[in-house]
């Protein structure tokens, strides 16, 4: 029983992170129609930034986190301006370009961090919260969960209560109609990828003290993001959040009883099943192809 409660807690915390980067991916795909294969690498850059400026050079964690978000956002904006905008009409080309960026970022990480073992960032928040004598949650993880929730909440507010948010949703629904209404597609695309990248950078920065930092960490991120996106429904942001939490719990429980690799295999099979049975996902809206 304790194990179950502990696993639920672990799952929820993981879900927070999954939601952050899955929502970013969905934003980019929903608004711009392009699959950003380099999304995992954006998270990686966020993590590396924390390692470089906080662990190696001593800048405090919160400013380092802000720096990570800024850096990744800039990378995202550059990608939009120089890669996705010219290939706006050919999503496959955009995807291929993002693969190119994937490689460049991985090499950049290798050059910055050097070869060798995974980097470790000592957690800025020490200590563990102990509930009911057995439920132990490190404060660092609670911080991550809290900030994730705040960020998602801020995103929700932005999308539902601001003009830019409304414009984003309009473009996601029907780009041509939105353009006819006078919405500047280029500007909206910039905003979409800016927000998506910012979320990815935030996720990387929050995960940095909790995980192994190496140039390949993006691989698992992108797989998770795909699974969550498909299961939750391509184009649906709330779907992505729900799916993130459900998938995190799913993955955590299978890991506990059968191992992590089996859990990922099951996740992939789940994704394929969803693609077959209900390609729009739990809450998805059909996206025109």
């Amino acid at each position, binding site marked *: 029983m304790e194990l179950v409660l502990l696993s639920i807690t672990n799952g929820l915390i993981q879900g927070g992170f999954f939601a952050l980067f899955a929502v970013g991916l969905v934003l980019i795909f929903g608004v711009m129609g392009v699959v950003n294969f380099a999304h995992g690498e954006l998270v990686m850059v966020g993590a590396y930034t924390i390692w470089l400026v906080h662990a190696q050079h001593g800048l405090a964690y919160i400013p380092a986190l802000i720096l990570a978000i800024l850096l990744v956002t800039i990378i995202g904006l550059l990608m939009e301006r120089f890669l996705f905008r010219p290939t706006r009409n050919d999503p*496959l080309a955009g995807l291929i*370009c993002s*693969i190119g960026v994937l490689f*460049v970022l991985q090499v950049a990480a290798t050059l910055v961090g050097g070869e060798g073992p995974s980097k470790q960032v000592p957690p800025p928040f020490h200590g563990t919260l102990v509930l009911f004598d057995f439920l132990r949650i490190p404060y660092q993880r609670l911080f991550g969960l809290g900030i994730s929730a705040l960020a998602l909440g801020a995103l929700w507010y932005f999308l539902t209560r601001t003009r830019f948010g409304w414009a984003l949703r309009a473009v996601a629904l029907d780009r041509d109609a939105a353009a006819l209404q006078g919405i500047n597609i280029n500007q909206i695309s910039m905003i979409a990828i800016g927000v998506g990248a910012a979320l990815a950078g935030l996720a990387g920065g929050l995960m940095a003290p909790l995980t192994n930092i190496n140039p390949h960490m993006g691989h698992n991120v992108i797989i998770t993001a795909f699974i969550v996106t*498909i299961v939750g429904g391509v184009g649906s942001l709330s779907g992505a959040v729900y799916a993130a939490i459900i998938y995190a719990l799913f993955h955590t429980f299978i890991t506990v009883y059968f191992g992590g690799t*089996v859990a990922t295999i099951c996740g992939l099979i789940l*994704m*394929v099943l969803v693609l077959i049975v209900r390609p729009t996902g739990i809450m998805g809206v059909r996206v025109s192809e």
Partner: protein
Amino acid sequence: MNRIVTGKLKKILGGLVLLVALLVLPHLLEFHHQDLLIFLTINVLVVSSYRLVTLTGEWSLIHAVMMGVGGYTATLLFKNFELGMWFTLPLAGIVAAMVAGLLCFPLFRMTQFYFLIGSFAAGEAIRLCWIEFVNPFGGTGGLSGVEPPLIGDIDFLEPVPYFYLTLAVVSLCLLILYRIEKSRIGLTLHSVHWKAPLAESVGVDTWRYRALAFIIGSFFVGIAGGLKVHYLGTITPNQFGVGFMVFILIWVIVGGYNRFYGPIIGVVVLTLFDESIRSFDEIRPAIYGAVLILSILFLPMGLESLAARIRHWIGRASAAAGSRMTDG
């Protein structure tokens, strides 16, 4: 009449010259490049078989894993049943084709973006099975101990004999692939790509043709996997991951995929390019990333379009020269 004969003669002569060049080539190279030549030849089969799959307009991300399916089949057959290469190669192709056949049912209910992601997921799931199930797949360390044949006195572990063997097998496969493309099946595949609704309206079962392309493509890449493992001796899951799949994409996209020889140009040019940047090993993936991006943005029709343009210029130049000759 004369023109047709000379045209055909030119083609045959060209083919013979190429054949002789290929037969002589390994002897002019260092051992290290002889190895590369073998892998290059195998990769030519990989990209050509991928092109067949993309003829229907769908880009799958599972092709690299299919090569692995063929490779693991050959390995397991060799190690457990001591079958020689004459058996393991075709069986590698057949098993890959069968796996592809099974996957058709779930995968071909999706199109475009969904098919891309779905094929990626299915491939990754298979690869993770190789990693998870140490028995029989060997886990991350993979399996080793596969040997090439020993015919009489010829030790096929040596690069030169193995190159000839590979050349023979790959040439045969390319011939078959080319014939398929030029046949009715190939033309139907084209129609599925460009005018699917129209094709369906005349009774073409697009599902069946997409499946056919996928299965045949997987058959040939499975054979490529077998060829590779019999030379290298070991097989590991990482040989068939996202990295290799991206290479395939790069070769096909940079080379161009509108003509049969497009991907072949891509893999040859990029492999040579790769060798030339060998000293920049650390940043090599970044260079590839840049090549990919530049090629998508500035040469979307691939290198083959350059080849066609050059031929066009040469044709015009010789025609102009010819007309001057007849004038003078």
